[in-house]
C-alpha cells in the first residue's frame, strides 16, 4: 500500500495493464517522450517504446477512430484526449461508432476501447480547458462514463475500463491530479464499473455527487458532524449508466437529498439522478430534491473572480448541505 496522487494512480494503472497484456497500448497527443501535458503517461514511453506509447498527429477524430479500428481487431487501446474540451471533434467516432458497434452488428463485433480525458476547472484553464463534458455523453447507450474521485478508485476503475469489452469514457478531474492523495494498494485489483460507492455513512441528509465534489462534500460533512448533522455521501463513480439501485437506496436512507455537480446545471447528469429519485421514491422524501451546480453559462472564465464564481468549492457545498440539513 502506498500513498499516491490521483494522477500517479492513473500512471500506475496504465503501467500495470501494459505489463499484464501486450495488446494494451496508449495513443494520443504528446503522450510519448513528453509523457502527456499533465504527465499522466510519464515514464511509459521509456518502458514500452514508440509503438505502445504512440504520439499521434493532432487529430482527435483519428485518435478515436484509429483506436476503434484497432480495438475491433482485438487490441486494447487507451486513447488520451489532451483536454476533455477537445474531445468534441471525436464526438461522431465515439457516439456513432464506438457506442454502437456491438449493437449494430448484433454482438458480432466489439470495441474494447478506453478514452481518457482530463476534465474540470479550478486551474485557470478558462472556457476551453475547464469544462465538464459528461452530460454530452450520458445519454448514449453502449457507452460507459466513469468519473473516479480518489486514487484508489482511479486505479481500480481504470484497470476495469481497460479490461472492459465495451467502450469506456474515463474522465479524470485535472484539479484532482495533484491535489488529491490517497492509499493505493500495490496489488492488482479492479473495481466494478456501473456501481456507485458510499463514501460516508450518515443519517440526516444524503449527498450524491462524483469527482472532485466528493471531497468537498466529505470535508463539509466533517464540519457539519460537529454541528450535529450527519451526512450520507454517495459517490456515483460511473455516471452513465447510473447505478439506480444505489441512488434510490441512498435517497431513501435520509429522505433529504442534495445533488452536486461542477457542471452547469440545466441538462447536467444530476438531472437524471433527480428524475430517478422522483420516479422511484418520491414519497420517501422530506424535502425537495436540491441541486447545487455551476451557473448556466458556456464555461468557466479565466479571470480569477469569475472562475471562482463559477467553480464549485467546499464553502458552496457546506452551505448547501447545512441548508438542507436545517430544512
Amino acid at each position, binding site marked *: 500500500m502506498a500513498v499516491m496522487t490521483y494522477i500517479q494512480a492513473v500512471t500506475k494503472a496504465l503501467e500495470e495493464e501494459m505489463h499484464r497484456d501486450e495488446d494494451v*497500448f496508449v495513443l494520443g497527443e504528446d503522450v510519448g517522450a513528453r509523457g502527456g501535458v499533465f504527465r499522466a503517461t510519464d515514464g511509459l514511453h521509456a518502458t514500452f517504446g514508440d*509503438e*505502445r506509447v504512440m504520439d*499521434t*498527429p493532432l*487529430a482527435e*477524430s*483519428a485518435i*478515436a*477512430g*484509429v*483506436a*476503434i*479500428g*484497432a*480495438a*475491433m*481487431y*482485438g*487490441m486494447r*487501446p487507451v486513447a488520451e484526449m489532451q483536454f476533455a474540451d477537445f474531445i468534441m*471533434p471525436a464526438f*461522431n*467516432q465515439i457516439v*456513432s*461508432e464506438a457506442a*454502437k*458497434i*456491438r*449493437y*449494430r*452488428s*448484433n*454482438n*458480432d*463485433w*466489439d470495441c474494447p476501447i478506453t478514452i481518457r480525458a482530463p476534465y474540470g476547472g479550478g486551474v485557470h484553464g478558462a472556457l476551453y480547458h475547464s469544462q465538464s463534458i459528461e452530460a454530452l455523453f450520458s445519454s448514449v*447507450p*453502449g457507452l*460507459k462514463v466513469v468519473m473516479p474521485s480518489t486514487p484508489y478508485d482511479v486505479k481500480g476503475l481504470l484497470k*476495469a475500463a481497460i479490461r*472492459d*469489452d*465495451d467502450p469506456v469514457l474515463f474522465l479524470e478531474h485535472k484539479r484532482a491530479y495533484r491535489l488529491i492523495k490517497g492509499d493505493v494498494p500495490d496489488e492488482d485489483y479492479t473495481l*466494478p*464499473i*456501473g*456501481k456507485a460507492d458510499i463514501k460516508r455513512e450518515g443519517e440526516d441528509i444524503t449527498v450524491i455527487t462524483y469527482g472532485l465534489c466528493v471531497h468537498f462534500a466529505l470535508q463539509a460533512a466533517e464540519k457539519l458532524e460537529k454541528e450535529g448533522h450527519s451526512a450520507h455521501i454517495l459517490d456515483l463513480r*460511473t455516471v452513465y*449508466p447510473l447505478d439506480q439501485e444505489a441512488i434510490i437506496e441512498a435517497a431513501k436512507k435520509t429522505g433529504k437529498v442534495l445533488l452536486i455537480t461542477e457542471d452547469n446545471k440545466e441538462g447536467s447528469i444530476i438531472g437524471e439522478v433527480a428524475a430517478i429519485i422522483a420516479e422511484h421514491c418520491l414519497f420517501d422524501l422530506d424535502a425537495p430534491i436540491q441541486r447545487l451546480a455551476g451557473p448556466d453559462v458556456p464555461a468557466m472564465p479565466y479571470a480569477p473572480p469569475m472562475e471562482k464564481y463559477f467553480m464549485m468549492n467546499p464553502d458552496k457545498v457546506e452551505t448547501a448541505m447545512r441548508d438542507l440539513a436545517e430544512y
Partner: protein
Amino acid sequence: MEALTHRNLGLTDEQVLEMYEKMLLARKIDERMWLLNRAGKIPFVISCQGQEAAQVGAAMALNTEEDYILPYYRDIGVVLTFGMTAKDLMMSGFAKADDPNSAGRQMPGHFGQKKNRIVTGSSPVTTQVPHAVGFALASKMKKKGFVAFTTFGEGSSNQGDFHEGANFAGVHKLPVILLCENNKYAISVPIEKQLACEKVSDRASGYGMPGYTVDGNDPLAVYDVVKKAADRARNGEGPTLIETVSYRLTPHSSDDDDRSYRTKEEVAEAKTKDAVYTFAVRLRDAGILTDEVEEKMIERITIDIDAATEAAEKAEYARAEDTLKHVYKEGGDA
C-alpha cells in the same frame, strides 16, 4: 479478338470468369432488390450498379483469407468476393434475424460479418477510414501481415475523417488501401460541386502516399493497381489512395428520384460503358466467355438468387424484445 491483359496480371481464364461472374451476381442481386422494393416487399435498396467492376476487381486483388475489409454501402461486389452470400444479402434486404450483418437491425448495405473479416459499418460516411487505419496499425504492431482495405464515395472524401485517417496512415506507413469509388454524384450533387481538384487521387501527395486514378469500368485495371498497393502494404511501404472512376447507374437509393438533377441522356451515355456489359464483350472477344459458359453462369446465379429470396422472405424477424439485446457485453459490468 482483343488481347486480354489478365495473364500478364497472373490471372487464369477461370479467374477472370470468376471475376465476371461475381460482377454479374452482384448486379443481379441488386436488380432483384429493386424488383422486391417496387413490389413493396422490402423497404429500401441502395445499389452497386455501375461499380461492380471496381468492387470485384479490387476485392479479388486482396487476400480473401487474411485481409480485413471495411466496405461502404454500395459494395455488394466486395462482400460477395469476401464470402458473403446472396442469401446473407437477401436476409439483410428483408431485415430478417438471419441477416449476418446485424440481424435486421441495420438497413441493407451496412455490411459486417466477422467470420469473413468484413468489419461492421454504419451510416455516417467515412468513419470507416480511421477504422481501417486502426486495423492496419494492429497488423503492423502484431506483425500479422494482413492488409486493411476500405472504400468510400468521392463526395465522402470531403469528410474530415478521410483526411485524418489518411494522414495517420501516411505518418505511420500503415498497410492500408483507401479506395474511392468515384461515381460522379453524391446523391444529387455532381463532382464539380464536391471537389475542386481534378482527381480524388490528387489528395494522396498531401499524405505522403502514392495516388492512382483508374477506369472503374475496367476490373483488370483495378485489380492491377490494388494488387500493387497490397504488395506495397505487405512490404511495409505504407498506404495507397486509389480512385476508380465510373458512374452511378441507378438513383442514389430507392428513396431517390434522379430526374431532378441529371438527364436521361447522361445516364444512357454512361450505360454504354457499363462494365457488366463491356467486360462481357471483352471476355467474349477473347474467346473466354462462350455462350455455354454464360448460360450456365446465369443459371447458377438465378437459382442462387431465387433460393436466397425465397429463404429470406420466409425467414423470421428477430423478436421484438431482441431490441434490448447486446447494448453491452452480456455478463460484463454495468
